């Protein structure tokens, strides 16, 4: 019975999100990749909206009963689903922009083999998550000391739910955003008890959905082979699976980060304003998940400003940014209320001393220590040299119409990495301790988006048409990163 209630509490926002996402994107071809993208992203968008709604209900009343929550959600989500279905009926299906330029052609059996490997690895990843959850049902330290503890305050606190943000709890960061605690408390409200299994199910959902969004978005943009390969790379990364099962907020944050970049990419190549507003919403949900969301927004804004200055279509860029901001508003308003109306200032801002920070900025040893830790993490945990090796092997070839979008993606990611690096340089906490307790999580947040950027940059792979040999395409003059593989015409 409990499993059924938990499932139903997932179903409403997941269904609404899945139905709503297509209305914000250029129509797809109805392929597996297309459906996979809409489901894996729509589900997370719906659940993020569920967390926001729960917080809104809590803020407007003293405690939330399951009946009131269901009534409120049923009205809102079914209205959204109805509008989505109505809109989808009228919508003209357009295909995603055509592939142009060169691509490797592989025989169909190679694609089938990679698809089989993907399914096997995905099943193994899910099993691994289950085993890790059985080993630590309450998750890691931060899960029960921060995220699930806050969920308990929201769920058990009744009219005193605001105690979760008491300055007396400064040690466990009462200023942290509430997407995960809100979502967990929402599920517990439906269940009627704080079941340990629910946050574990949420953690599993975000881990698997991140693999889904990565594989399906790349399959849409670069073909099934690239998408499946990226999915295999992510599902085979033990540190990603470990952080996924830990019930921390880093994998959900990485999910919304990836969703934002994927939607921004789709919006830029298709010039879709609705995709921009959806990208804004996922970026807002990233901010509603972790404080690092502010760094994401700052990086996107910096890249956008440079883009506008260099663009001949400034008016269009400003209009599209307006749609992005509009989409980001609901989660950002909730965050503003949390930060300025409920929670005390965060420890990083409260402890910030400009003079001491300057002393740390001019200390070269700190840069070396942070750099060495980042390199160790990238090599031994995320195995980035393997991915870079694939890029070298396949060669870099970005489609003509997407160069600006890919460049912006790399620029945004580079700025986020630089900001994380700098936070470690200036941190007032003992550096070795700070790196040891958080670097691995921060790198895990970025890893799905890094894979997305890597595979968008790599030469596309297409499947050979049955019984037809493809002509060997000549490399484009002046192109760097030619591959030792035989490059063939893509279509």
């Amino acid at each position, binding site marked *: 019975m409990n499993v059924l209630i938990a499932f139903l509490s997932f179903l409403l926002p997941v269904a609404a999100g899945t139905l709503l996402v297509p209305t914000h994107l250029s129509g797809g071809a109805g392929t597996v990749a297309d459906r996979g993208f809409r489901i894996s992203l729509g589900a997370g968008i719906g659940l993020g909206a569920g967390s926001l709604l729960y917080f809104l209900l809590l803020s407007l009343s003293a405690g939330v009963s399951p009946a009131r929550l269901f009534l409120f959600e049923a009205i809102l989500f079914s209205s959204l689903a109805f509008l989505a279905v109505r809109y989808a009926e009228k919508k003209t299906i357009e295909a995603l922009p055509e592939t142009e330029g060169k691509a490797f052609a592989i025989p169909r059996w190679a694609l089938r083999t990679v698809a089989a490997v993907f399914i096997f690895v995905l099943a193994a990843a899910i099993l691994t998550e289950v085993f890790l959850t059985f080993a630590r049902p309450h998750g890691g330290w931060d899960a029960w000391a921060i995220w699930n503890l806050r969920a308990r305050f929201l769920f058990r606190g009744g009219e005193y739910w605001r105690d*979760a943000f008491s300055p007396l709890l400064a040690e466990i960061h009462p200023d942290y955003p509430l997407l995960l605690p809100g979502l967990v408390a929402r599920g517990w409200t439906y269940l009627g008890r704080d079941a340990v299994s629910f946050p574990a199910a949420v953690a599993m959902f975000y881990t698997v959905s991140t693999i889904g969004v990565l594989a399906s978005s790349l399959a849409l943009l670069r073909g099934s082979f690239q998408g499946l390969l990226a999915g295999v790379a992510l599902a085979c990364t033990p540190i990603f699976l470990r952080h996924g099962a830990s019930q921390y907020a880093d994998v959900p944050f990485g999910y919304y980060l990836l969703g934002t970049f994927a939607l921004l990419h789709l919006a830029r190549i298709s010039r879709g304003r609705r995709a921009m507003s959806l990208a804004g919403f996922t970026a807002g949900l990233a901010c509603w998940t972790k404080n690092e969301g502010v760094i994401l927004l700052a990086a996107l804004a910096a890249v956008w400003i440079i883009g506008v200055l260099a663009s001949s279509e400034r008016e269009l860029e400003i209009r599209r940014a307006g749609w992005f901001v509009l989409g980001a508003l609901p989660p950002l308003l909730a965050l503003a209320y949390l930060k300025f109306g409920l929670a005390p200032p965060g420890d990083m801002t409260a402890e910030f001393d400009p003079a001491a920070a300057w002393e740390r900025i001019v200390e070269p040893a700190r840069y070396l220590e942070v750099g060495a830790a980042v390199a160790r993490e990238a090599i031994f945990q995320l195995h980035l040299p393997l991915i870079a090796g694939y890029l070298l092997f396949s060669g870099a070839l970005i489609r003509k119409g997407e160069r600006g979008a890919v460049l912006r993606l790399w620029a945004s990611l580079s700025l986020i990495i630089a900001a994380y690096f700098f936070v470690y340089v200036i941190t007032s906490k003992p550096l070795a301790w700070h790196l040891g307790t958080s670097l691995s999580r921060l790198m895990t947040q970025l890893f799905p988006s890094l894979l997305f950027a890597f595979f968008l940059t790599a030469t596309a792979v297409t499947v050979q048409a049955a019984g037809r040999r493809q002509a060997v395409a000549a490399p484009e003059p002046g192109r760097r990163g030619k591959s030792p593989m035989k490059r063939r015409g893509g279509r």
Partner: protein
Amino acid sequence: MTSYEARYDEIRKHLPAHGAIGYVSDPKEHNEDRFAWAFTQYSLSPLLVIDRSVNPKARDFPIVVGNFHRAIPGDDRMRDLSLERDFGNGVFLLRNVAK
């Protein structure tokens, strides 16, 4: 964790439903100390469980939970505290006699 939470099942019935209470424990290695306190906070939420050895404000709270793994300390940690009830497994209900 589940068995750790079960240690607090009995004392929970004697604590207020909300608000702040004090927390005292025997000295442990630093990290172990924080683990023990965080476990207790997680187990007793939505009560605010404030460690007397970390936050001086906790010395103002009339009700205090004792979480002792080795022995009841005889040092400053126990100042103004009187033992009210022993719930077994190192869990004690204490009262702040200064309040």
